[in-house]
């Protein structure tokens, strides 16, 4: 049941977006988030929207997948909209009972909703088009450029890789232990909150112990393969920028500049 989890909901296609260097996509995402917070009018959102739609189309990922992230945050987005509607002072537009909705309130609520939706969609797009492994490589490379952190960049990336490698294995193990305990009469499905939490002990204790044992065996196996940290280590594949990455950087910068300019637009 758990066999094929891909962390991060990677959706592989053969698109140009997928083939970009992960560093390009990470940097783009950062700049995109910053631009979102720069926007202060409809023109700005329109520009951001057009960029987003363009990228979605290029990525060949079904729109349904891209917007799925919104569902997870729907409740809090709606609540934020409602709050903004009612608490923003300004020119009253509607009034009923003790509530007043102002024009500024409506504008702010719509802006907030748009910003959150764009934020969710844009970031999901990056994780949908970049495999967790590529993402890890990209992060490692970028961390190597950050002072202080840079001496740990290799170890951090190694940790992420091993964690990704073991997630499916441990998921299968979870399933197995759960079944084994059920066969001994354990009940994971009924009882109140506290009873259920307590019933998980026969699952979680063996699971953690098994993870400890695996960690131990893995350490020995890595040592036997001459692992000694990041020093003097080479890589089979080095990340390398292509022409399309430079093009992507150009477009990204263009986007930031245009969005910045929209701040001076009248609407």
């Amino acid at each position, binding site marked *: *049941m758990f066999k094929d989890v891909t962390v991060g909901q990677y959706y592989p296609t053969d698109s140009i977006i997928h083939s970009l260097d992960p560093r390009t996509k990470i940097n783009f995402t950062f700049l995109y988030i910053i631009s979102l917070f720069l926007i202060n009018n409809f023109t700005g959102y329109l520009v951001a929207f057009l960029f987003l739609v363009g990228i979605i189309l290029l990525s060949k990922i079904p729109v349904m997948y891209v917007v799925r992230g919104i569902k997870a945050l729907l409740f809090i987005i709606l609540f934020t909209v409602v709050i903004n509607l009612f608490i923003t002072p300004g020119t009253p537009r509607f009034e009923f009972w003790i509530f007043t909705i102002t024009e500024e309130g409506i504008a702010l609520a719509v802006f907030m909703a748009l910003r959150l939706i764009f934020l969710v969609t844009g970031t999901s797009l990056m994780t949908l088009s970049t495999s967790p492994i590529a993402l890890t490589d990209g992060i490692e490379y970028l961390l190597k450029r950050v002072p202080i952190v840079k001496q740990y960049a290799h170890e951090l990336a190694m940790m992420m890789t091993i964690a990704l490698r073991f997630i499916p294995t441990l998921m299968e193990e979870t399933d197995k232990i759960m079944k084994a*305990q059920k*066969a*001994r*009469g354990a009940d994971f499905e009924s009882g109140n909150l506290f009873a259920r939490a307590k019933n998980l002990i026969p699952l979680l204790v*063996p699971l953690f112990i098994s993870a400890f044992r695996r960690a131990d065996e893995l350490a020995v196996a890595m040592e036997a393969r001459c692992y000694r940290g990041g020093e003097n280590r080479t890589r089979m594949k080095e990340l390398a920028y292509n022409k399309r990455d430079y093009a992507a950087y150009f477009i990204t910068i263009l986007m930031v500049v245009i969005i910045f300019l929209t701040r001076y637009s009248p609407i």
Partner: protein
Amino acid sequence: MAIELINLEHTFSEGTPFEHKALDKISLTIDTGNFIGLIGHTGSGKSTLIQHINGLIKPTGGTVVVDDLDLSHKDTKMAQIRRRVGLVFQYPEYQLFEETIEKDIAFGPTNLGFDKEEVSKRVVEAMESVGLDYNEYKDKSPFDLSGGQMRRVAIAGVIAMKPDVLILDEPTAGLDPRGRDEILEEIQTMHDKFKMTVILVSHSMEDIAKYADKIIVMYKGKVEFYDSPSSIFKESERLIEIGLAVPQVTELMKKLKAVDPLVDEGIFTVEAAKEEIMNMIRRRNNV
């Protein structure tokens, strides 16, 4: 306690691109008190099959009936099923979790709702059945034991539920040859003593040949054969074709038969092979 599988089907991830039919229209009856060997290539559906027998997996088609209990029926309580059918998984020592051996073995019977007295009686019996001295071991941590002993504790944890049907998925993996024999002997003894129905999943044709009175052979989710060992091991070509093997002595008998047609090829234990070869030699010396 008869087990009846009627048109049993199981499809994983039904309706997705990962759809996979693991069991395909399986119908068979296992009689009370049988010692069944279950063999089949990797991925043939053995584990999926046995998990149906104690309700851990629900069929996507067909039913499982254990005695009078229809497992796919809504009113059937899981506790009733677990009480009748005990399942020992592969590497069962990885499911131990309690501080002491006694507590760990008591986990199953306690879950079934027995009172303290009954539980501790069962723990004593179960430990005895797997050859662990109660007084010496009860207060030890299960994690202080050797691999073979941990395996025994885990098996005892299921035995203590006193199931009528005991299913074991490769109980001897990773043990040395003596450890292997000891565990199988203990299972055999329990089978004889409590008239327990035993289903043993194993990759070792020699072990299956030695202990089982009937063998189920699975191939790609279907039952290929279900018969006595002597008839099944006669089908050596087919067995090899579907990724299995025959015991070495069966292979030998087959080759001997090629030169002496009177040789019986349905032989699978060293004892019987010895007899047959002695007969063969006598025959030849008489000529």
